[in-house]
């Protein structure tokens, strides 16, 4: 099969997918106002049920928290697989990184990136963001270290063992809150009612902020491990 044929085939398949998606969306029921349906129930009483101003976080970590547990388990599986296949040994890879001008200027910026990551994680139930997003921002710091300072620096700063500790700690926080839901409220991952404070404060919304923190650490450490085990190539020259 030559290249042109390949491209034509890909275009045909993509057009078919686009048509199918369009059909699906056109078959969706008409919007019927704010009175019916599950989404309308969530919009109406989500704030009362969970105390979280951000309804997406309310759905992710309260109504469908079990799904989120599954998602973070998927990340755990991906990390395990990639580490098993790619990283034959967890050794620091030598690399000089970029010039010291870049290193110094990024050194000034890195703490603020980390602080912003923590901000996104802890404000998950009040403003846009949450555990997944903030965790990826934290993982970006590891990528910056590996590229700019060389991966040996990343290894010294926080080694794969530390990252594994963070990841496991995050997962255990999530599971522990789920078990606490069984003990206190009677169902797995039930929102802990006694932790709820006045709406709009940082320590409100039951167990949602703590689940956010756990997921944030887990996702950040997990993605950092994935990236770290992918860069095995050594760069002798600095550029």
């Amino acid at each position, binding site marked *: 099969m030559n290249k042109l044929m390949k*491209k034509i085939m*890909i275009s045909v398949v993509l057009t078919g997918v686009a048509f199918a998606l369009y059909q699906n969306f056109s078959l969706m029921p008409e919007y019927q106002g704010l009175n019916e349906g599950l989404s309308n129930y969530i919009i109406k009483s989500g704030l009362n049920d969970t105390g979280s101003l951000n309804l997406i976080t309310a759905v992710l970590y309260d109504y469908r928290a079990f799904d989120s547990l599954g998602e973070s388990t998927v990340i755990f599986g991906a990390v395990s697989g990639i580490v098993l296949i790619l990283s034959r040994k967890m050794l620091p890879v030598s690399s000089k990184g970029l010039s010291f001008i870049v290193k110094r200027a990024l050194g000034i910026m890195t703490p603020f990136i980390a602080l912003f990551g923590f901000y996104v994680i802890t404000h998950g139930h009040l403003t846009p*963001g949450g555990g997944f997003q903030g965790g990826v921002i934290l993982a970006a710091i590891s990528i910056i270290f590996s*590229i700019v300072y060389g991966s040996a620096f990343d290894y010294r700063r926080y080694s794969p063992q530390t990252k594994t500790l963070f990841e496991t700690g995050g997962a255990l926080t999530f599971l522990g809150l789920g078990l606490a839901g069984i003990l206190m409220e009677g169902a797995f991952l039930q929102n802990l009612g006694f932790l709820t404070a006045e709406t709009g404060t940082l320590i409100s919304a039951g167990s949602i902020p703590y689940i956010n923190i756990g997921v944030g650490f887990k996702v950040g450490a997990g993605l950092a491990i994935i990236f770290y085990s992918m860069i095995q*190539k050594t760069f002798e020259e600095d550029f």
Partner: protein
Amino acid sequence: MAVLEIILVIFLVFSALMAVYFDEELISIIFLSIFSLVLTALYLLHKAADVALAEAVIGAGLNTAIFMSAISQIRHGDSD
């Protein structure tokens, strides 16, 4: 608003097609990151700030880095 939306959707389709069209992996990755950026703008236009934040961080930032490291591994493996 509608005009901006149409322009962004056209850009989206264009960048997706270009990502498929080029044989060079690097150019495909760059077009994918442009795709994520346009998608972020579209999400923001529809007032889905959460999804926009996730798309910007994961699509434009992390995916690009991981793909880059992956193709550097592959190239190291088979040719030089």
